């Protein structure tokens, strides 16, 4: 067997395995366990793979064998073309491909092939291999605090040049990713050319938009980031595919940050998969006793690092802190810097009342009502001071009329 056709054989088997793995849970894991690794399995003969994966019950259809030869043919055609087959913004990357993300290879059960979508997928995949990537994951139904933290982390990590990886699910995932896509990277540390700001890992075929309400995020990810999936185009989302997807999120990232989640949430699964793959795990603390704090607090209890801001992640990865990096940036709007804010703005800036209000906001955000009570001001004085700070750009008003320091 010549080297070229042998290589084509590995590719064909990878495609065949991916096809089977799109419809049945645990396929890659079984193959990897049986042959020692996926790499070894791809060297095995198709018939031995087929025997291993033959449906146990006679009733279940064995959907794949015929397609195997078809894709073998397709792969043979691809062998003539450059390393991978692609059509406008779509790419199929096999395990042996040089574009295959190195992070995934360290998984015990890496996807045999990866479907990739996005403008310029090739340079972006290459850039992804160089750039640090961090997963921000959490519940689909976050509190406003969790949502805010997701946005903050997503945006700041992207500003620091980190690729934000997540699952494009509702809530924390999409909030972090949209914030990352909207962020403007700071003075690039290294070569950030072509680095996707965010990567969405799907639990369905790349052509399936799920959930529908995230359609805009899907579009933005195609345009400014990447969408990846191990599942065959057209594969619908289903319960078992999301945990499978989570191992890709862990694999692609150097660290996983869990924002909010209940005891049995998918984010906890992602964090555990990340630990298995030797990644850093960080958790954003929540309020004690709340259901959504269960997952992060469980992780913190078992050794995850505390994450209050993007800097915590950057430090954990040995990267330069964001706060250290932006001295030239106008105004120093970082929360810690506000002490000098009011006086510094200009002569008739906020007066004593505004300073008192600012001090209470530095302790914790609050509604006008709470701020008035904590600062010991009349309601109208507190309202006026809050608006003045808002106009100065020192405070901002969030959902529910909660004021907080501007970021």
């Amino acid at each position, binding site marked *: 067997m010549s080297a070229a056709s042998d290589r084509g054989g590995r590719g064909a088997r990878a495609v065949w395995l991916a096809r089977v793995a799109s419809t049945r849970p645990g396929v890659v894991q079984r193959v990897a366990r049986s042959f020692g690794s996926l790499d070894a399995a791809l060297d095995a003969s198709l018939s031995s793979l087929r025997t291993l994966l033959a449906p146990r019950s006679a009733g279940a259809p064995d959907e794949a064998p015929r397609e195997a030869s078809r894709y073998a043919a397709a792969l043979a055609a691809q062998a003539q073309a450059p390393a991978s087959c692609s059509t406008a913004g779509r790419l199929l990357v096999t395990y042996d491909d040089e574009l295959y993300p190195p992070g995934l290879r360290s998984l015990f059960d890496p996807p045999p092939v990866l479907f990739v979508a996005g403008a310029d997928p090739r340079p972006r995949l290459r850039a992804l291999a160089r750039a640090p990537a961090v997963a921000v994951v959490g519940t689909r139904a976050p509190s*406003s605090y969790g949502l805010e933290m997701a946005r903050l982390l997503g945006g700041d990590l992207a500003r620091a040049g980190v690729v934000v990886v997540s699952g494009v699910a509702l809530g924390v995932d999409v909030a972090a990713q949209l914030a990352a896509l909207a962020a403007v990277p700071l003075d690039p540390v290294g070569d950030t050319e072509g680095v996707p700001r965010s990567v969405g890992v799907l639990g369905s075929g790349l052509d399936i938009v799920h959930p529908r309400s995230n359609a805009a995020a899907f579009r933005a990810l195609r345009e400014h980031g990447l969408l990846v999936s191990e599942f065959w185009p057209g594969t619908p989302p289903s319960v078992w595919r999301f945990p499978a997807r989570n191992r890709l999120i862990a694999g692609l990232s150097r660290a996983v940050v869990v924002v909010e989640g209940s005891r049995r949430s998918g984010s906890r699964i992602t964090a555990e998969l990340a630990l298995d793959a030797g990644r850093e795990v960080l958790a954003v603390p929540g309020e004690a006793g709340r259901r959504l704090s269960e997952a992060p607090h469980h992780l913190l209890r078992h050794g995850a690092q505390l994450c209050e801001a993007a800097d915590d992640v950057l430090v954990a990865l040995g990267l330069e802190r964001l706060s250290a990096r932006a001295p030239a940036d106008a105004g120093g709007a970082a929360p810690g810097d506000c002490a000098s804010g009011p006086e510094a703005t200009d002569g008739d800036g906020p007066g004593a009342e505004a300073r008192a209000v600012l001090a209470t906001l530095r302790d914790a955000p609050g*509604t*006008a009502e709470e701020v008035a009570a904590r600062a010991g001001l009349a*309601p109208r004085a507190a309202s006026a001071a809050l608006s003045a700070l808002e*106009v100065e*750009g020192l405070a901002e008003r969030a959902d529910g009329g909660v004021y907080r320091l501007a970021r």
Partner: protein
Amino acid sequence: MLAHVTSETLFGLQGRAVEVEADVVAAAPTFSIVGLPDAAVQESRERVRAAIVNSGFEFPSRRITVNLAPADLRKEGPRFDLPIALAFLLATGQARRDGSGEVAAVGELGLDGAVRPVSGVLVVVESLRRRGVGRVLVPAANAAEAALVEGVGVVPVARLRDAVAGLGGGGVAAARPDVGSLLGDAPAGDADFADVAGQAVVKRALEIAAAGGHNVLMVGPPGAGKTMLARRLPTIMPGLSVAEAIAVTRVHSVAGLLPSRTPLVARRPFRAPHHSISVAGLVGGGSSPRPGEVSLAHHGVLFLDEFPEFRVSALEALRQPLEDGEVTISRALTSVTYPARITLVAAMNPCPCGFLGDRERHCTCPGYRLEQYRSRLSGPLLDRIDLRLEVARVPPREYRLGGRGESSAAVRARVEQARHRQRERLGGDATAVNGHMSARQLRRLCRLEPAAVELLDRAYDRLRLSARACDRVVKVARTIADLEGAGGVAAPHVAEALSYRVEHERR
């Protein structure tokens, strides 16, 4: 023989003269009513016949024709029972009129001869006075409101026999109630600002709303007390003037909502229709147009809870009354105008589940539902709302610790002073308030101090306010200055006003 009695029918908030003529001739016995009567008027034949017989009069077997003139005006309702019966009794010689001046009558009859109350008696009597009618027989239950009108002798009648006596010059005219003391003695009701625990910022904002006649949007989770707060807004608004009270009473009387034997609506109305209400129910309508909730809330508060759940068509229909202070309902041949000078209090949850921004519970609304929910608010309607208030839930601790706040009376005293200042500046009638200022008045009368101008300019840029939003901020700032007794609008006034801004449209 021929006889006639004068009466009135209602047309919107106006009375129209109706002459009730009865002709009784010896011919085959029939009883017919002509002159564009509706079904209720047609049925009055049965009530009149029974009431006459049961009151001990005779109902002869003759040919009876009743004509309601003018014949081209549609007559509705049972209000003509009494004049028809009286015209018949006059025509058959069983009753007699005394010579002194004209006597009008209005009322529904029971089969036993009792005279029952009808709607709109206040309006009817006012119209009779304009026509120069000196005496009017009204159902005893309506006598109190009828007696509000000066210059007409109001004779309350409880039974048909009383009415016959009244026609002959008998009966005692009802005494005119003392409107001033009625207004002064208006029971304060059981709602008071002092009942509300915490919510100091919201209460302050409602004080501004009451002082400047500003419309309000309250946003907050279920159970935050939005309804409780709104219900107390009328208690801090200035008391009704005599003219206002009579205007309110007119609408309630025409709608048939004035409680029996109550002369006057003495307290500012508070109307809180359910969100399933129809357009006609909200702004008025029907084949013979009746006043809607917005008119029943005239000079008071219209509270629309679950604001985005109202039909879009109903909310759109609110625009005219909010703009003009009245509603015109047009029909093919006629149009009727009802007053509707209201303070609108709209309330909504921050999101469909109600917990967006709440720190105890989290919002479970998918983004598209949120979009849908917010898009239900129409921009043009929000343009009429000057204050937006976030109402958060008060933790139980504050219920226990919070002492009683300021009473409604104390707040109302400040509101009345602020209104007085506005009246002097705006030079209008008692209803002249900052909330109703025109754009021209705003430019001319709301001078901002230089620091205030600067703040507003910066807010315009930084908070991306629209020009209209800026105008609203200035109006509210003017009211805040009025509450303080300040002549010019200073920066702190603008700053506070900014915290209540309505932000539906950003540049």
